[in-house]
């Protein structure tokens, strides 16, 4: 693999990482395109942070290979890779006795940033901390420290930004500001590798997501994952229970199966909800049923996540 402008932002090939007898990441392969916001989900201990550390050249893989911006992940390339990426770890890891500005000055020099004053001012403005620049980091709340860590990650104008739980511990307003910042960075062409437990956050921000549980369980756009894992369904709710639901639904074209959902609810497996819904509505009205609602069931990314992680839990029990 050689460095070139058309290479994906991240290319991971059969990557594994073991610590003694324990396998943290096992045979993981994926690619992340330039400018993509890529969500990396998984339960605690799934290997998300280990993967970030490996890709950030902080620890070496046990086997497999990877390239960051086309640069092969080797010990010799560590400095070059780290110069073009930034990592915001889950714990901010600030120098608490130093002011916000002093923390950023240190990192601007470590990245050898040109015009450090200008970059620091820009990063502080991006995270709404310009007025707290001279406060000691130790005097800041957890949320504000998180923002300083984010400003620190933005200092070097990274091409790939690894964010490990960037909104952990933030209040909803601060979390929304981080989301807006991520959206701005995406517009600016920055590739974002987002590790998060907040599934709604991943669903809202990410172009694609991967679910990791030591091995890579699935990868794709949230919509794709929903379709891949769950049959498309219509949810029907009536005022009274239907007298003969089996006969009614069997006669409707496009309905492949059904099951009850409570006393007056029915979930219908359909191949195309747009075709099946009018037919189901007609059949219900003709049968004299009082219909409360009818609509396509939406599975969230959380459903996908829980389905896959529960499968792993079940497999572990067997």
């Amino acid at each position, binding site marked *: 693999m050689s460095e070139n402008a058309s290479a994906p932002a991240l290319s991971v090939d059969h990557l594994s990482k073991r610590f003694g007898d324990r396998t943290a990441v096992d045979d993981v392969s994926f690619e992340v395109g330039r400018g993509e916001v890529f969500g990396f989900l998984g339960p605690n201990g799934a290997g998300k942070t280990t993967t970030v550390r490996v890709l950030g050249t902080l620890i070496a893989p046990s086997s497999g290979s990877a390239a960051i911006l086309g640069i092969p992940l080797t010990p010799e390339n560590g400095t070059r890779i780290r110069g073009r990426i930034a990592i915001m770890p889950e714990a901010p*890891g600030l120098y608490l006795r130093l002011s916000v500005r002093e923390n950023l000055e240190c990192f601007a020099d470590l990245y050898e940033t040109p015009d450090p004053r200008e970059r620091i001012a820009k990063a502080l403005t991006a995270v709404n901390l310009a007025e707290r620049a001279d406060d000691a980091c130790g005097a800041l709340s957890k949320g504000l420290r998180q923002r300083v860590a984010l400003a620190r990650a933005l200092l070097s104008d990274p091409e790939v930004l690894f964010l490990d739980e960037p909104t952990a511990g933030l209040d909803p307003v601060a979390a929304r500001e981080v989301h807006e910042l991520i959206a701005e960075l995406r517009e600016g062409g920055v590739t974002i590798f987002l590790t998060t437990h907040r599934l709604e956050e991943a669903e809202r921000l990410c172009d694609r997501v991967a679910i990791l549980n030591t091995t890579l369980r699935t990868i794709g756009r949230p919509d794709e994952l929903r379709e891949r894992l769950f049959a498309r369904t219509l949810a029907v709710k009536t005022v009274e229970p239907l007298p003969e639901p089996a006969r009614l639904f069997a006669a409707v074209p496009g309905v492949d199966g059904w099951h009850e959902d409570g006393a007056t609810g029915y979930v219908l497996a359909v191949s195309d909800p747009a075709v099946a819904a009018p037919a189901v509505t007609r059949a219900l009205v003709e049968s004299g049923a009082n219909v409360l609602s009818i609509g396509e069931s939406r599975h969230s990314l959380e459903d996908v996540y829980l389905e896959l992680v529960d499968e792993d839990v079940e497999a572990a029990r067997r």
Partner: protein
Amino acid sequence: MSMSLRRIGAVVRKELRDDRRNRTILVAVAIFPLIFLVQPLVVIFLEPSSSAGTLRESHLLLYMLAIPALTPSVLAAYSVAGERQQGSLEPMLSTPIRQEEFLLGKALAALVPSVAIAYVVFAFFIGCVLLFAQPAVAHGLLRGQDIVAQLLLTPLLAGFSIWIGIAISTRSSDARVAQQLSLVASLPLVLLTSLIAFDVIHATTGLLFGLGVALLVVDVQGWRVVSPMFNRERLITGSKG
């Protein structure tokens, strides 16, 4: 391999700023110069002129070499273990900084204040001798050989002490434990300088020169020993992988 002076400077500035605001470090750094200044000061103020002959037999100035032997180990011991403890090591190592730049920055940040403190204390002592000691006592204390030895051995002893401190710091996850172990590990140096100061080991020019050369060799080799001990993976994950 080229090293970045800007990155080394960033580590040095950060360390100096951080140490200056760390009360534990300040107390530890202040206490050794005070301890090793007291006895020589007592000599100045209490020794009568008649004891000048006895003073000629000892090398009281060299007694203060314990300051550069102990002070930097406290700073160096905090350097890596302190970063680990406050969780700042991972962000620091996520930057393009090379291992050598990191270690050199840490070593310089311990060396500069330690040597400065040692020289200031030394200058203060010489000033007191010139101002307050009996002329005969002053004549007995201030010898060219000892002053030159003090000036030259101070940075070399500090260098040795720093490598000991950093080596222990890379293996420890608790900064206080690292500081205590570093002090214990630096005690043989203090013993050596004290034995020379009290003339148990006779301080000839040749001995002092030999000691200087030996320390210089150890300082240079210390870099080679400590550098491989700095394992990013173990320091970040606690495991060698």
